[in-house]
């Protein structure tokens, strides 16, 4: 069995290595001057008044790819929620209050809103400067978990009604789809950036639908990360197996 696995790994690895080498031989040189795709992408992005070309590629020229990525994240989080649910032979123990050193707790309470504001800034300015919905959403979700790190899990649970985040996650996915369908209804194509005026270059309202799609992705990623971490935290902190419950309970106290 072990040998079979090794053979399988060798064959697969050799095949992958051969393909990678073959691909590498045809690549353009590192740091070259000619970028046929890059030039076209920059031109398209500038013609739609989007300062950050990457945002234009992600949410305008290839918005359909982003829809796929968003569905992957949604499905992955859904799978984790199903896998990490509380099973029949498990019980929920109240998380113990923790005494964290005072400077650490104060730091957590101070940085919490600052990190949230930074996350929102990164989402809102996705079409202007590096960043966007994904990055900002992850930062905003991480900000919330400072409450667990700086205090205890009960404090986090108090400001995190999980149902709201699950609903927001689904609503954000729906919002992305609705924005895409609006393009069809307006007579062009799915997710085509023709709905809104392109606005003044390098301002918050520039780029047509790019900022709106960015906001939808930001909401989706932030709530997906919160829901995902909530189930990991439940498993790590609260949920216990009931086998050997009494002895374990006595040991934990």
């Amino acid at each position, binding site marked *: 069995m072990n040998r079979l696995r090794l053979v399988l790994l060798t064959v697969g690895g050799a095949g992958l290595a051969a393909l990678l080498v073959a691909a590498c031989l045809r690549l353009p040189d590192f740091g070259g001057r000619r970028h046929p795709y890059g030039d076209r992408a920059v031109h398209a992005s500038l013609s739609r008044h989007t300062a950050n070309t990457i945002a234009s590629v992600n949410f305008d020229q290839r918005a359909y790819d982003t829809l796929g990525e968003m569905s992957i994240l949604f499905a992955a989080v859904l799978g984790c929620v199903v896998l990490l649910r509380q099973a029949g032979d498990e019980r929920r123990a109240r998380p113990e209050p923790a005494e964290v050193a005072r400077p650490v707790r104060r730091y957590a309470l101070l940085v919490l*809103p600052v990190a949230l504001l930074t996350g929102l800034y990164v989402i809102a300015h996705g079409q202007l400067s590096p960043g966007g919905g994904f990055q900002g959403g992850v930062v905003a979700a991480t900000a919330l978990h400072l409450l667990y790190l700086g205090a205890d899990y009960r*404090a986090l649970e108090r*400001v995190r009604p999980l149902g709201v985040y699950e609903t927001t996650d689904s609503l954000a996915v729906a919002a992305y789809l609705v924005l895409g369908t609006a393009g069809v209804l307006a007579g062009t194509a799915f997710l085509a950036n023709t709905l809104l005026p392109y606005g003044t270059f390098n*301002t918050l309202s520039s780029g047509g639908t790019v900022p709106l799609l960015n906001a939808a992705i930001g909401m989706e990623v932030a709530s997906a990360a919160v829901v995902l971490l909530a189930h990991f935290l439940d498993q790590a902190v609260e949920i216990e197996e009931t086998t050997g419950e009494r002895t374990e309970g006595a040991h934990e106290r």
Partner: protein
Amino acid sequence: MTRRTARAALLAAGELLAWWAALALLWLVLISTVDTLERIVGASCAAAGALLARAGRRAVTWR
């Protein structure tokens, strides 16, 4: 009784307002060009941050 609730409401409003002002200032520092829409978005994001700051503070000390 009413006096105490009024006092509590005043304190809560003060806390929220202080956080809102600090976060709105921070937003103005982060952005590059200032215009009306930028101010509106910044004010609402700072309001969300202020609400979370107060909720987090209460969640930690309320025991």
